[in-house]
């Protein structure tokens, strides 16, 4: 078990900078998920931590020890690869014991650790098979087992579930969660799937284009996204965004949109202009179907998705914008129907022209989640 600290870590490939100075602290025993779209640098960052990729600038500390120049094998980390990277010509047992044998561990200890890992992952009966004879889920277990036997200080997972089918992915997600609780070891998990991130993480690190957009607990990010990117990335279906204008008033501001949107917003930052273009954001579950004659917004239902437990309405507004409304349970709404929509004013978000959230608290200059970020070990980097 160990803590990890990245200080202004930079990665360049030739003249191209991929990671632009990342600062991050991960506490001992934490489960941290790096999430972001393809090419955001999350895997590169993980590989730099692993020691498989050199770092161009900055420092990496494991348990306070600078490991910039420490070889991958000597960092005491174990990695589960996206492709599993199992040695195809070795039995499962050999795959598990290879690392320990390389390090010259006593035979009895190797036997015990392999048996223990096999027990944890329930792969006892697979030990004499070769990876080629295993299913995707079994290979995944072996790959995790190979990491477990090493008893690493930190587990690194590089999109380990992306090659599994949806059902197995959910199952393995639960198992990895259990494993973390059982071992209590620090784990860093890379994924582009925000659902995986939300369900696994103690804390999520959202990355985009080599920059940390926000760090926080899953609900932190969900409830208090620091910027448009995080707001749009976390949550499914994603947050609705409407073009709007914020007009300053006495003690509060008003948010006005083209389709009849008109809300009081308790932010009156004297440093903000009196009138500015903003993006109004509200999650589908914070919209309610209402009587069209009295509702704030009205529109025509383009598509109604009846999922049984909930219903999603894709409603096109007079402005041409489309918003998604989530209704709990089953709603007798059909495509083409005209509906009214009310907005839960207490749960909406407003983002300035720079994409950063505009705080709800009067006078607050920092987005609420970024303020939280100050207490959290890592600070959200600006857009």
């Amino acid at each position, binding site marked *: 078990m160990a803590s990890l600290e990245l200080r202004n870590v930079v990665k360049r490939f030739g003249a191209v900078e991929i990671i632009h100075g990342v600062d991050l602290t991960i506490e001992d025993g934490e489960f941290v998920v790096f999430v972001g779209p393809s090419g955001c640098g999350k895997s590169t960052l993980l590989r730099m931590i692993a020691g*498989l990729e050199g770092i161009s600038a900055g420092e990496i500390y494991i348990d306070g020890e600078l490991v910039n120049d420490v070889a991958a094998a000597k960092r005491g980390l174990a990695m589960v690869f996206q492709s599993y*990277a199992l040695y195809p010509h070795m039995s499962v047992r050999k795959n598990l014991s290879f690392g320990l044998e390389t390090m010259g561990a006593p035979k009895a200890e190797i036997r015990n650790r392999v048996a223990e890992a096999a027990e944890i992952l329930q792969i006892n009966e697979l030990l004499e098979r070769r990876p080629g004879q295993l299913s995707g889920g079994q290979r995944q277990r072996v790959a995790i087992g190979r990491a477990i036997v090493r008893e690493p200080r930190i587990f690194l997972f590089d999109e380990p579930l992306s090659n599994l089918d949806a059902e197995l992915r959910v199952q393995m997600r639960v198992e990895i969660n259990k494993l973390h609780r059982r071992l209590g070891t620090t784990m860093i998990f890379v994924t582009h799937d925000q659902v995986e991130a939300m369900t696994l993480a103690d804390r999520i690190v959202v990355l985009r284009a080599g920059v940390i957009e926000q760090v926080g607990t899953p609900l932190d990010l969900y409830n208090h996204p620091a910027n448009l990117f995080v707001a749009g990335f976390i949550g499914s279906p994603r947050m609705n965004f409407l073009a709007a204008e914020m007009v300053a008033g006495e003690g509060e501001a008003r948010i006005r949109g083209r389709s009849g949107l008109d809300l009081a917003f308790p932010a009156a930052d004297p440093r903000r202009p009196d009138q500015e273009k903003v993006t109004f954001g509200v999650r589908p579950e914070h919209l309610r179907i209402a009587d069209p004659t009295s509702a704030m917004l009205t529109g025509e239902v383009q598509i109604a998705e009846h999922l049984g437990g909930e219903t999603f309405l894709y409603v096109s507004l007079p402005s041409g914008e489309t918003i998604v409304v989530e209704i709990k349970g089953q709603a007798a709404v059909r495509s083409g129907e005209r509906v009214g929509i009310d907005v839960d004013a207490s749960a909406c978000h407003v983002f300035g022209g720079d994409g950063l959230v505009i705080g709800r608290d009067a006078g607050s200059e920092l987005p609420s989640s970024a303020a939280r970020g100050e207490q959290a070990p890592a600070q959200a980097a600006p857009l």
Partner: protein
Amino acid sequence: MATTATGEIGAGGRPVAAASNLSARMARSWRRNGAGYLFLTPWLIGFFGLTLGPTLASLYLSFTDYDLLTPPRWAGLKNYEYAFFQDERLRHALWVTFQYVIWAVPLKLAVALALAMALDRSVRGVGLYRAAFYLPSLLGASVAIALLWRLIFGADGLVNHLLFVILGIKGPGWVTHPDYALWTLIALAVWQFGSPMIIFLAGLRQIPQDLYEAASMDGAGPPRQFFRITLPLLAPVIFFNLVFQTIEAFKAFTQAFIVSGGKGGPVDSTLFYSLYLYIEAFENFRMGYASALAWLLLVIIGVFTAIAFLTSRYWVYYEDEGR
């Protein structure tokens, strides 16, 4: 389904209909595959006329006395008996050939693998290096290069000149001294590492990079990675190269012919099996005996290949194997 039903009725009750049915089917098959057969024709003519025909003819000739000038006379097993029990020179030729195979093949494969590993990286101009290293294989088997080697390794050749200038050593005639001539030919063979190298390169490219990364996380340094990852995963390619190069080495002819002036000298030290066969056929005009030698060589190569295949299950791992 309908066709089968009609066919059965025709076969049972109306043989005429069945026959016309068959010819109709053949016509259909020809229409479908005719172009394919047409394209195959040159190869088929080549195979039957130039490979299978002569091969079978030589099998027959191996049981005859045939001097190329008078018609072959049936001799039964005489040629084989002579080869097995009396021909001392054949035994020597076999010994020379075995030495050549045993040294040239592993050395060539080792050099090929080493260079393939050196070239298996993205360095600027690596394509040029690959082409340059392959060049000897294009040239190596040619008469011109063998002649060149004869000059370079002659008593007054470039090699001895350099040895004298640099080290002050007066070297022997590498191709004219019985102790060195075979080794010179082995060196010439090893120098033609190009085609196994290209195949090794292709094989190395097939090994996923993340296995090496996993191994390095597991603490394995380059030597352990080589012996525990590269070699086992390359085994099918090594096996292929081994079989292929062994067959080639048993059949080696040109270099020995040119370097020794067609005699297998000095003192029969480069008398390869194929060269001896050639001498028997076209210098001693014993085509019947030479044919028997050709068939014996086929059997010898077959035995070695079989041994390689039989042992391969213990050291060759195939990815798609269900074991």
